[in-house]
């Protein structure tokens, strides 16, 4: 922790935080308008262009821990750069599924990812199971996001505030911010994601490039990294088996569209073109920002202070380089990323509660759905805030987060096969998800990191294999009715790619 005896430093850090929060609230007030329907509230009326899609996705993808946990990985070695690979390969799936996911979304007024699964497999049960898995998996990340904000306030106060005070401050910031998430829904989220994203990712990347051109974290330091930093886990001289990196990257790639907040970005787009162009811009943002940040982490890794406390390396290094002003900038960047991520999680969980779960017994009107979504968000954030307080410094919370990642990827089987293939049925989707998540939970509890006896495969991959096996077995064993075959055929036909006259192309007859 950084300490100071100069009171004016506190004015600098809290002053910059105050300016950031004021800017965020100004954006919210400037763009506030009443939602006209549940679709308007939940997915912003399907009206947003590529830059909004990209910034919103990036906010929901990189949490505040990117600046702590992932930063520490790159201070320690080349491992941290794997995030750049899985982030870019994963979001590519959004491009490839854009036609069907967006077209079905518009045609059937889908607002959530489980909504699509339920429609594709013609099963409310599939929708509800997927929704429950999604909400439960997101929850630990919101709790950790709130706790990360408390850590930010510890830095901002230069260690003068106690843990409890910092935690209250973190919770207060989140709760105040959520007032607008609840009242404005997706519109408020998208607008502030643009503001937060400019600070968290664009400003951060520019700052890191600037620092890499300087002396303290010079780009040239990269050529002098010690050999042990260049070892890839699974290779000789490391403790992991050969399949460890495979597991990490594969989980990240297929997990990308499984996170409900990531997938929901498709439905906020104004069309297939916006989704596809948004994907390209997303790659630029998620890959470019992350790669530059990790290059900075590797370049500063030999600083003794950073090497001793890699998780705090982002804050320590910027304070060493630029004093309290630079520290304030570092804090605001992480604050913007953290708030963006927590907002996305809260919004999607409230929406899923209303749309996927509260419609269990009877259909709801738009007004009822909106009220239920708002209520769900309030309960969700209140529960997360209480748990954040009760479990601060509770090491097992990290295990819950790991289980959640291994659990959420179990949605990949029905999601990917449901969108890219006409095969499969609701029985396979339900049984596969349940088998997969039970295996993932049990194995992650026993092997939180990797399974040494299986070449360092992770538990989620084992669950996924079982999940896929059940899905295929059901697809082979249970023949669909002619009506179901026709329904699925019609779904794929309505989203088939057709060549149309474009600004550049000459019209042709098909």
């Amino acid at each position, binding site marked *: 922790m950084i300490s100071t005896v100069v009171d004016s430093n506190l004015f600098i850090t809290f002053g910059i935080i105050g300016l950031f929060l004021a800017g965020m609230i100004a954006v919210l007030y400037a763009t506030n308008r009443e939602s006209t329907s549940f679709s308007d509230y939940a997915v912003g009326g399907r009206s947003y262009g590529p830059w909004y899609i990209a910034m919103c996705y990036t906010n929901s993808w990189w949490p505040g821990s990117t600046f702590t946990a992932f930063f520490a990985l790159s201070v320690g070695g080349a491992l941290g750069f794997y995030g750049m690979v899985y982030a870019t390969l994963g979001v590519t799936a959004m*491009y490839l599924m854009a036609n069907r996911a967006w077209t079905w979304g518009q045609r059937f007024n889908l607002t959530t990812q489980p909504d699509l699964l339920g429609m594709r497999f013609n099963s409310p049960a599939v929708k509800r199971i997927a929704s429950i898995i999604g909400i439960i998996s997101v929850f630990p990340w919101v709790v950790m996001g709130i706790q990360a904000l408390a850590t930010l306030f510890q830095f901002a106060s230069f260690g003068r505030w106690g843990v409890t005070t910092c935690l209250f401050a973190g919770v207060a910031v989140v709760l105040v911010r959520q007032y607008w998430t609840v009242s404005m829904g997706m519109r408020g989220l998208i607008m502030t994601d643009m503001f937060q994203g400019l600070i968290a990712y664009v400003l951060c990347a520019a700052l890191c490039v600037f620092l890499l051109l300087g002396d303290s974290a010079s780009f040239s330091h990269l050529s002098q990294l010690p050999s042990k930093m260049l070892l890839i886990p699974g290779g000789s001289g490391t403790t992991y088996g050969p399949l460890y990196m495979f597991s990490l990257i594969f989980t990240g790639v297929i997990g990308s569209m499984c996170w409900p907040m990531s997938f929901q970005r498709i439905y906020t787009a104004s069309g297939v073109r916006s989704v596809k162009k948004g994907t390209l811009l997303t790659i630029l943002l998620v890959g470019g920002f992350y790669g530059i940040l990790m290059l900075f982490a590797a370049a500063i890794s030999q600083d003794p202070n950073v090497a001793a406390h890699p998780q705090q390396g982002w804050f320590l290094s910027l304070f060493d380089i630029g004093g309290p002003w630079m520290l304030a900038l570092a804090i605001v960047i992480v604050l913007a990323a953290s708030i963006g991520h927590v907002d996305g999680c809260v919004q999607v969980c409230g929406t899923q509660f209303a749309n996927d779960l509260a419609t269990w017994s009877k259909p709801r009107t738009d007004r009822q759905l909106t009220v239920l979504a708002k209520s769900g968000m309030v309960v969700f954030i209140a529960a997360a805030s209480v748990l954040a307080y009760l479990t601060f410094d509770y090491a097992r919370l990290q295990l819950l987060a790991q289980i959640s990642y291994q659990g959420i990827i179990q949605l990949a089987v029905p999601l990917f096969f449901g969108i890219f293939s006409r095969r499969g049925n609701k029985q396979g989707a339900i049984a596969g998800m349940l088998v997969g998540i039970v295996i993932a939970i049990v194995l992650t509890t026993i092997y939180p990191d990797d399974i040494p006896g299986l070449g360092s495969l992770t538990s989620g991959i084992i669950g996924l294999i079982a999940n896929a096996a059940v899905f295929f077995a059901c697809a082979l064993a249970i023949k669909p009715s002619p009506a179901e075959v026709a329904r699925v055929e019609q779904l794929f036909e309505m989203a088939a790619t057709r060549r149309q006259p474009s600004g550049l192309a000459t019209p042709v007859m098909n």
Partner: protein
Amino acid sequence: MKTDPSLAPPGRLKTLVFGVYFFLLLMMALFPPFYLSISGSNALVLGIPLPIFYWVLIAVLMGLGLWVLYVIESVTGEIPQEEGAK
């Protein structure tokens, strides 16, 4: 200048070319013999150690490949135009 879609790669060829391209990138990222072969290497590429450059390269090639795919799909009119996006 207008481009005649009939001169653009047919759908199957496009799927094959980009399918192979993305598959190779996926293998670079997932197939252990590829990335483990450069583990610990001190070789520098553009001033960046090879084990780091390797991951950066995959991400850059994926981004570029998708941009090219988007351009081709735009030219051939496969992506519907839209109006009113914010």
